């Protein structure tokens, strides 16, 4: 384990005061990444030119004594489904090979406005459909803690990049746990913010009504800072909320009410994971929080409702990839567009994407829409009310992020078994709640994550709880 790196605030101070050269540091980092990433494969694209140019500009401004942004010189890795102009955006799919978006996502604009340095684009499960990053058309990413294990997914590249110290911060997207799952498997912090707090403009959608751009960091203060930079109303996203940003932490966790949700420890939960998370929750008790077991109703519907809604939206979102306007096309120069669409889509989509498009189309079909889609939406309503009720009694709800340890790469599981491990993460997406995965220790040498959930716009409660925890156990190290 390497030396614990300084906080973002300290890094920014060093750059601003010209103690370090941002350009040198960036060049050094960019040179080091390929050596580490040979084994891990977190990056699909390194933006060497753009990053060094930005670093040079920051140094120049620092020299002139100009005020620098809150992320000045800080390296940020970006999941490959978030658009950065002049960088590829493949979504881990062959169908978007060669596609270069002509614009920056709002989150990228906000990061660059605060002088953050976009390092490059990270690997992911194709179109964010998966929890292992094995479903990338460009090969799997490996878990920095154990190269035979998956890093989780779908934002596995971003989590691994932070975990292995290649990037200080990272962005992912979380549709059903795609930030929290890899955060848990890679022993870093991963936040899924309240729905509507972070703009989705420029985020290539998997399931629009469920997903948010999430943040990865190793320190709570860094995570909170990155969240603060990228969040806030965006007039280009009609689902972006206008309500004020989450309040700052008031510090201290004494007297807070923490509910350990029994349903989060279901039958698929590994013993070691259960023990670690319960041990970690003891820390909250020691810090003076009121910790007790509780129930959340209707949780048994969450997984099915999630997959029905996500697949339905995905089947429609992914229709546009037909090879006509951008991306890959394997059939050119024919008037039989139907056959051309089919050929391109058959050859360029991976099996998991096809499975979800088929299932999604099915649940939206005449005669099935009511039985599946509408029923899933009403289950979503039930779950929303169940959480509203639970948050009347608790500030924070807690459980394991993932019920299992990181699976082996290539391990054979059925799709259903694979979907089952999302059981604790999908409720936050269905209800739009903020949820945070924090490292809770290791079992058999593999990371375990603890998930904290808060009411809508309760990010400050999550940061507060995580900060208290970090103060008690220390900043988790990087696996370098």
């Amino acid at each position, binding site marked *: 384990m390497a030396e614990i790196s300084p906080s973002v605030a300290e890094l920014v101070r060093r750059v601003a005061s010209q103690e370090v050269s941002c350009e040198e540091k960036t060049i050094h980092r960019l040179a080091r990444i390929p050596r580490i990433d040979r084994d891990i494969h977190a990056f699909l694209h390194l933006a060497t030119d753009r990053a060094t140019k930005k670093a040079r500009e920051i140094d120049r401004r620092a020299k002139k004594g100009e005020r620098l942004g809150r992320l000045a010189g800080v390296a940020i890795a970006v999941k490959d489904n978030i658009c950065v102009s002049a960088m590829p955006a493949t979504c881990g799919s062959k169908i978007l090979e060669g596609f270069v978006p002509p614009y920056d996502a709002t989150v990228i604009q906000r990061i660059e406005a605060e002088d953050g340095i976009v390092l490059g684009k990270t690997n992911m499960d194709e179109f964010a459909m998966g929890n292992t990053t094995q479903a990338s058309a460009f090969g799997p990413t490996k878990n920095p803690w154990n190269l035979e294990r998956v890093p989780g997914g779908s934002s596995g590249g971003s989590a691994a990049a932070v975990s292995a110290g290649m990037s200080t911060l990272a962005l992912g997207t979380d549709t059903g746990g795609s930030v929290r799952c890899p955060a848990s498997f890679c022993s870093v912090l991963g936040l899924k913010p309240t729905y509507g707090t972070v703009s989705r403009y420029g985020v290539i959608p998997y399931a629009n009504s469920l997903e948010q751009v999430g943040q990865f960091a190793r320190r709570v203060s860094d995570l909170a800072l990155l969240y603060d930079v990228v969040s806030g109303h965006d007039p280009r*996203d*009609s689902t972006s909320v206008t309500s004020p940003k989450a309040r700052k932490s008031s510090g201290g966790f004494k007297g807070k009410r923490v509910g350990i949700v029994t349903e989060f420890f279901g039958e698929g939960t590994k013993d070691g994971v259960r023990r670690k998370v319960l041990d970690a929750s003891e820390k909250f008790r020691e810090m003076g929080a009121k910790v007790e077991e509780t129930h959340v109703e209707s949780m048994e519907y969450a997984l099915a409702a999630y997959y029905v809604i996500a697949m339905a939206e995905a089947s*429609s979102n992914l229709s546009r990839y037909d090879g006509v306007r951008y991306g890959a096309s394997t059939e050119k120069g024919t008037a039989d567009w139907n056959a051309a669409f089919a050929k391109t889509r058959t050859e360029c989509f991976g099996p998991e994407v096809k499975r979800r498009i088929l299932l999604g189309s099915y649940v939206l079909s005449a005669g099935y829409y009511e039985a599946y889609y509408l029923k899933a939406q009403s289950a979503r309503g039930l779950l929303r009310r169940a959480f509203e009720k639970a948050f009347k009694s608790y500030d924070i709800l807690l459980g394991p992020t993932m019920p299992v340890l990181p699976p082996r790469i290539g391990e054979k599981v059925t799709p259903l078994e694979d979907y089952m491990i999302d059981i604790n993460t999908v409720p936050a997406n269905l209800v739009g709640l903020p949820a945070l995965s924090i490292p809770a220790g290791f079992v058999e040498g593999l990371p375990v994550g603890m998930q904290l959930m808060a009411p809508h716009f309760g990010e400050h409660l999550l940061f507060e709880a995580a900060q208290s925890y970090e103060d008690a156990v220390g900043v988790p190290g990087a696996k370098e």
Partner: protein
Amino acid sequence: MSKRVAVLDGVKIGLEIHCQLTALKTKLFCSCSSDYRDKEPNELVCPTCFGIPGTLPLLNERAVEYALRIAIALGCEVPQRTSFYRKNYFYPDLPKNFQISQYDKAGGVAIASAGSVRLEEKRVRVRRLQLEEDPGKLTYEGTIDKSPYSLVDYNRAGIALVEIVTEPDFESAREAKTFLEKLRAIVEGLGVSDGELEGAMRCDANVSVKGGARVEIKNISSFKEVEKALNYEILRQSTFSGTEGGAEAETRHWDERRSITISLRTKEGEQDYRYFPEPDLPTLELSPEFLRRVREEMPEVSEVKAERYQGEFGLTPQMAKEVARDAKVADFFEEVVSKGAKASDAANWITGEFREEVRTAAASGDGRLKAGDLVELLKMLESKEATRGQAKEIFRGMMTTGKGLAELGKSTRTGVVLDESSITGLVEQVLRESDAVEKAKSDPKAFNYLVGQVLRLEPKADAKLVAKTLARKIKR
């Protein structure tokens, strides 16, 4: 050939009209210019309307206002909230391979429903209105079935469309065409669409004959073609009636060049559009304040106004149309009626021999037209305080001099002579002096001439009484 079968019993026609909101400056969900006609292909596109991944639709609020103007003009019910749905189907002219539209089933609510339009003596029901985006445009080399490739122009993709769906209330092709012309006048009057522009108003139809199956007809490019296509289809289907099975439920394509409809697909081949709520656009609240503002800002279309005058004031269709034709004249009419005049009297007066003067005076807006004075004048006529001739003289004076009734009334000798003995005296005087007496016994024209002679002697004489007295005298 088609003209001869224009009217046939048991014909039911419904229309589905797509009307571009051409008055908008930008597209429905992005800020690209909507002025796409005569532009280079794919010149007016941005990442959003080109379907670039990661872009999001942003609703053009003005489009909502314009759609609501149409809804209000067609007497539709407007819901408190409405939502957008995705209509999913693969077609190269759709940049996203789905169209953002609306849906009125399975929890969806279109922007308006249940309206109606008066068409002479009947009411045509409007089932619903919805707001949606136009697809792009495909170009083929040669014909659609032989072209080796197709070219796509997305300039039109994302243009705001209002879809208007009627109930099958038309009984002839002629009726359908009349409705379309009226609808075009309405959207033009509302300032939301210029129906003259190529492709701004497009129409699909469904036709059934004598309870037979419903046949959809697509690709009718202009209103001229509507009547032709419908008449062809009515004739085609009527040849099936009486035969076993009748016409088949299907979708047919109007082939303009050959003037026939050709089968596109049968009912079994219908697309399943997999409608579901558009997750990128939240439910749209149509607050009472918003609706009030739309109402206040929208011009009342003369067609709609004329309908209101028929219903509210009992004017004949012809009269209502006359009054409503000019907005300023209509305003004057409404003011006169609101101040207590009988609507039919006011309408007669305004659209009668003074029609041109009233229009000019109303247009000038200089206060020459005094509603209160006309009300008084009409009352004087009714109570026989003035003759028609006197009233006309006063009214003309008002419009030419700008003077009021009080002033003009003094200089014009008013008061009707109703005294029978003095009228008898005048009649006798005319009879003595005229040589048309014999002729007047059989010729009404000569009779009226004599009445006129009496009125020349005494303009205030009551014309009816003069006629009565004269008739009595010459019969004797």
